[in-house]
């Protein structure tokens, strides 16, 4: 995704040509029904399995393949394995939310400041730092996770495995989201607004605070939503640097229980809760992004959708 971010949004594309041309033989602008069917097949294939998994979290029985009636026992009813009553399951929900909130609150301000800093500083050091930042975006997560595990167990042992190490690791892993997205936005805004503010007597810091930051808000907001959602989803890093069961978020718990352990629909219930958290973040992101960029909207919802997906 990174490579697309720096580019300005294209002019609204014309889906249908204005002039319907009549050529002998087949209409060259006919709708490609085959491709449309293929697209719908893909959409069904991508969504139906998830819908079934959500459905079976409400199954009355313990099966994940035979429907035995509706029930919420895997969420609240069952005294042993429901998400509400099973300590490891509800710890996992809480841990995921704590990590997502901490990471977003720490990571986004650092990333935004970093983006503004390297965009204006323009030196060999800043381009080197930019390079390192983009590198952290493309490195396979496992390699960084292993390196971070070794860092906190061999060198910086004051960062304890568990929540401190998880937060530190997630902050650096997600730093590239705000940095890349805000930087792209800075490039498309240009300098003229800030310079106008400076000409009208604003200090540099004042111009940043009162002109630049408000203009960056959609990008900052989109990156916050992305950081939150990607932390909720994160598995590799937190698996490496979590310690006891109490610091395992939902993703790790699902992973370690799929084959044996807590099985049955309570895992589906946990996954559904994760899904709802992410979708809520997406919805808030979509609405917020549209609201913040209300003055400059050209393509309706499509812009906000791609904005909060980081493209």
């Amino acid at each position: 995704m990174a490579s697309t971010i720096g580019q300005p949004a294209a002019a609204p594309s014309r889906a249908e040509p204005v002039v319907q041309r009549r050529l002998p033989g087949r209409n060259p602008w006919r709708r490609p029904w085959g491709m449309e069917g293929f697209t719908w097949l893909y959409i069904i294939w991508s969504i139906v399995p998830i819908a079934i998994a959500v459905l079976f979290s409400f199954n009355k029985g313990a099966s994940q393949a035979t429907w035995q009636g509706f029930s919420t026992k895997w969420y609240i009813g069952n005294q042993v394995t429901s998400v509400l009553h099973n300590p490891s399951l509800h710890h996992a929900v809480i841990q995921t939310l704590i990590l997502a909130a901490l990471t977003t609150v720490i990571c986004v301000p650092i990333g935004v400041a970093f983006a503004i800093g390297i965009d204006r500083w323009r030196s060999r050091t800043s381009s080197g730092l930019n390079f390192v930042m983009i590198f952290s975006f493309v490195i396979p997560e496992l390699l960084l996770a292993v390196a971070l595990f070794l860092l906190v167990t061999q060198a910086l042992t004051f960062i304890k495995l568990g929540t401190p190490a998880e937060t530190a690791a997630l902050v650096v892993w997600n730093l590239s989201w705000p940095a890349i997205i805000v930087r792209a936005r800075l490039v498309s805004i240009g300098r003229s607004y800030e310079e106008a503010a400076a000409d009208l007597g604003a200090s540099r810091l004042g111009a940043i605070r009162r002109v630049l930051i408000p203009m960056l808000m959609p990008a900052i907001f989109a990156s916050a939503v992305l950081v939150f959602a990607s932390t909720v989803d994160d598995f590799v890093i937190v698996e490496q640097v979590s310690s006891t069961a109490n610091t395992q978020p939902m993703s790790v718990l699902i992973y370690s229980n799929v084959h044996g352990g807590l099985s049955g629909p309570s895992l589906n219930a946990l996954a559904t809760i994760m899904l709802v958290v992410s979708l809520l973040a997406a919805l808030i992101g979509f609405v917020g992004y549209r609201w913040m960029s209300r003055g400059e909207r050209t393509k309706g919802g499509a812009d906000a959708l791609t904005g909060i997906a980081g493209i």
Partner: protein
Amino acid sequence: MAVHQGTHDRRYRGLWMGLTLPGAIALLVLFVAPFYVMLSVAGGGINEFFQTVVPVWNPLHWSSWNLSAVWHDIFGHGSFIGGAAVRTLIYTAIATAISLAIAYPVAYFVSRYGGRRKTLFLVLLIAPFWVSYMMRMLAWIDLLQQGGFVNSALSFFGLPGNTDWLGGKSVTVILGLVYGYIPYVILVLYAFLDRIDQSLIEAARDLGLSRWRTFWHVTLRLSKPAIIAGTFITALPMLGDYFTNQLMSGAPGTTMIGNAIEGLLEAPGETGQGAVLALMVLVVLLIPMLYYVISTARSSRDYA
């Protein structure tokens, strides 16, 4: 970019440096330093008694003991890492190719023919992006289990419906990889294809090119960077994947290089070898990663 680079900014250099500082510290301490620790562990030794790692911080004293042990594990007799490495490449290549083959027509259709329903299509294409990876794997595990819907559907059509899909089949692992990473490919392809100037395609048609030749000579040529970006965005994480195969099969016959790294790290006394293997993967991936980083930096400069 050089247009605004004036004396104006140099006065505020301290401010820009100050803004960059927290991020720079985070990157240096938590991204660069960890790989130095990894090198020190890889070049270090072990405490024979406790079987724990003893990192060696001075590069001059690094030993090649772990390296030769891993080298033997990869290329030597009875190697178990070599097979995993080859399998990783094969799985990644097949899964990336399938992802691109599915994603391209979908992204192409939505970007060119989405029309008034484009927003709806985008919502549906982006939806899986917001569903966690674990959830998506769990969904397929439910479907593929012994009495699951896939087997029921197969026996409904008179096919053998007792396949143990989750018992170590490469097909299942590749399905998991494709299903897990394809939303990213589609988004990347869509972002590029949506920016292709439609008038170029119209011009090609007006000049008499057939639909197929227009696609071949114009659209496909223009979408080359999209295909390259889509390949990177899926292949790089797939090469470091170790959980998809664990979830979808868990059998030794489908292990990938990531599992070998994990296994060595957790084995007492072999953490150093895990670090060596991780560094080897990093070195192999360095060239594609650098290519991607440099082309990203270049394209953002071109558009600035």
